[in-house]
């Protein structure tokens, strides 16, 4: 394994963490927006309590991924960011609206304002992962050529694979959130709310599974290189994802919420890893490989050292934060 491969593995681990934790925070916003009826207030309170202490830390994974890409694979960052200027700007605005609306809602007590900020928070929690997924679709379908804004400014992210990517991203975030919130609701002693989220998780999990299966047909036509990788080298990962997804639905059905959390995470995480395995060693499909895009050895080694030291500091701290925020309220 080269230094560039090692950086790529750490980058992908970071992106996976973003999907599993940051993604669930997006999903919580999705359910917050769609709440209604007699349980609306309890859903809002649960979402606020669950993501309140952790969402900023979970958000940092995204920044981590960006800076690692531009340090280790500068031409990839330049090509992706300049071609995908529109969806990236949408993500940036979504991130700003979402974070500020969330903290604003928490800090005001006027019900009308709470509603306004709540709607902003929910909408941006859907828009942001959609565009992130669309960006993934653009890269995976080979629509980002190397160079300065060399790709199609609109077609690069408005195409079947990007729409699939965006839809899957929103769905997976909502699914993860529903699964996590199920056990959070049970932990706070609200079994009725846990059951409500169980139903949501079962529904959303099934929907995501169906979209993913239909998606394979889309990819075979719209992203042939990715498709070839998915059905060959990445096939074991794809199968693992499918089994983990089905397994998590079964566990949810049996109300084994803790175990369902793990398998749901595995199902979503292995989608990301399946994509990576299928596309390896190309960073930009059809053009740049890892070897062509990687920075020099000195940069990669310095980056690896920083990331390892960083992980030693960050991982236990993050665990402490999760432990603290997951303890039942006194």
């Amino acid at each position: 394994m080269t230094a560039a491969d090692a950086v790529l593995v750490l980058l992908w681990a970071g992106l996976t963490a973003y999907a599993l934790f940051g993604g669930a925070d997006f999903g919580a916003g999705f359910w917050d927006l769609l709440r209604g009826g007699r349980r609306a207030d309890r859903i809002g309170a649960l979402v606020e309590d669950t993501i309140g202490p952790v969402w900023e830390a979970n958000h940092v994974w995204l920044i981590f991924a960006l800076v690692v890409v531009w340090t280790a694979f500068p031409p990839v960052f330049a090509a992706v960011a300049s071609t995908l200027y529109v969806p990236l700007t949408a993500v940036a605005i979504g991130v700003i609206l979402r974070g500020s609306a969330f903290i604003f809602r928490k800090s005001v007590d006027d019900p009308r304002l709470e509603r306004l900020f709540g709607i902003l928070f929910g909408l941006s929690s859907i828009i942001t992962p959609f565009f992130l997924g669309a960006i993934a679709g653009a890269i995976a379908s080979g629509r980002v050529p190397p160079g300065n804004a060399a790709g199609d400014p609109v077609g690069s992210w408005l195409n079947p694979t990007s729409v699939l990517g965006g839809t899957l991203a929103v769905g997976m975030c909502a699914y993860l959130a529903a699964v996590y919130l199920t056990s959070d609701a049970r932990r706070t002693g609200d079994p009725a709310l846990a059951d409500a989220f169980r139903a949501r998780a079962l529904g959303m999990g099934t929907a995501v599974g169906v979209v993913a299966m239909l998606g394979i047909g889309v990819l075979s036509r719209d992203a042939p290189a990715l498709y070839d990788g998915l059905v060959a080298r990445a096939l074991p990962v794809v199968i693992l994802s499918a089994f983990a997804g089905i397994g998590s639905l079964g566990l949810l059905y049996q109300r084994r919420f803790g175990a369902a959390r793990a398998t749901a995470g595995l199902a979503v995480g292995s989608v990301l890893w399946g994509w990576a395995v299928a596309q390896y060693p190309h960073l930009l499909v059809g053009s740049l490989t890892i070897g062509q895009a990687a920075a020099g050895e000195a940069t990669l080694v310095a980056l690896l050292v920083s990331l390892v030291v960083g992980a030693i500091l960050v991982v236990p701290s993050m665990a402490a934060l999760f432990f603290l925020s997951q303890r039942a309220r006194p």
Partner: protein
Amino acid sequence: MNLFDIFAIVDQPDLWAARAQMALSLAWHIVIACFGVGLPLLILVAEFRAQRGGGAVYDELAHRWAKVLGVLFAVGAVSGTILSFEMGILWPRLIETFGSVMGLPFAIEGVAFFIEAIFIGIYLYGWDRLPPRIHLLTGVPIVISGVASAWFVVTANAWMNQPVGFVLTDGVVTGVDPLAAIFNPATPVETTHMILAALMVTGFGIAAGHAWGLWRDAGSRVHRTGFLVAFTLGALVTPAQVVVGDAAAQFLATNQPIKLAAIEGLYQSERGAPLSIGGIPIDGQMRFALQIPDGLSLLAFRDPNALVQGLDTVPADQQPPVLPVHVAFQVMVAIGFFMLGLGVWLAWSWRRRRGLPGARAFLLGAIVSGPAAAVAMEAGWVVTELGRQPWIVYGVMRVDEAVTVARGLPIGLFTLLGVYVALTIGTVFVLRRTLRPAPAEPIA
């Protein structure tokens, strides 16, 4: 060079929009980021005093300031994200060519930011859930990582002013030494100058809020104590900032002389160059300035006869815009000395009678000092950034070589402008609501 040169770039609307968008996002984020550096320190001081028998006032202050930090850190975290996007969206050629040289400090800053976000979560959530001493300790990593992120991110800007640690042949970078890039010659002065500025913005910013409280309710103990603690931080840092600022100017004289020439509006190289205070550069001449003979030579080289390099030593297309750089510098220095004066006033009054100066003018000055500190810090960034023009990487890559070729950037700029206006209104509104004292119980 005339007054409207600053607008001459508008014949390239996309380049103009890219620069304006970057400036807008940076200028907005950096004020908030300053509080991320300084406010944790103030909160810890208050909590420490509260635990050591300082009384309920300190406890109240620690909680109030923590509420402010909770809002500002969230807003800062999301407004900082867009900056990392913009590095590639707006300046792809900068990253493509130099990402491997200047990227490392951003990655390390990412780690520091992680620690800060995690411990802010622990600190705010754990307030009534952890033993008091442990809780105080969980605040320490916030302070350290806040200062560390400022340090690392500013090293990247310092590198853009003093690019080292690589070899450039035919547009391709080789022989990268990322540590040399981090510890480039501009790093010591620039990072120190910025971290002190962040402490000043926080100190005077928070003090201004409490000064406003004292203006309306002179007897409030919370406001009095909060004012004293925060103002002391700002007032202690100010003299040090004057020394560091002077070192920064001396550094420029040798390492980035054209920036200093733009600051001073020195069009021709001169021995015994005068120091221009105030004034407006018009048509290649400094007008209406108070000039101290030999002053610039003395300040820059500690020698009244020293030769100071003028703008004429580089071709016209390599000269920064003089007017905004000169004016911004004057503003920054004037505000700095204004604060120094306020600090001396308080110290004098404290020595004489252990109290705040009685004059309303002092409170008024203190109220002004908050926004003024932010203005001075922004003005300093105008000097640094515009003074580097037309280069994005000093002497190596021009801004117009780095910019994206994507079109339609003005649309993005104006969209973001709307977002920032809304964000500003929202932040101010929410902070005011958060800090509003609980309504008094109606007297039956």
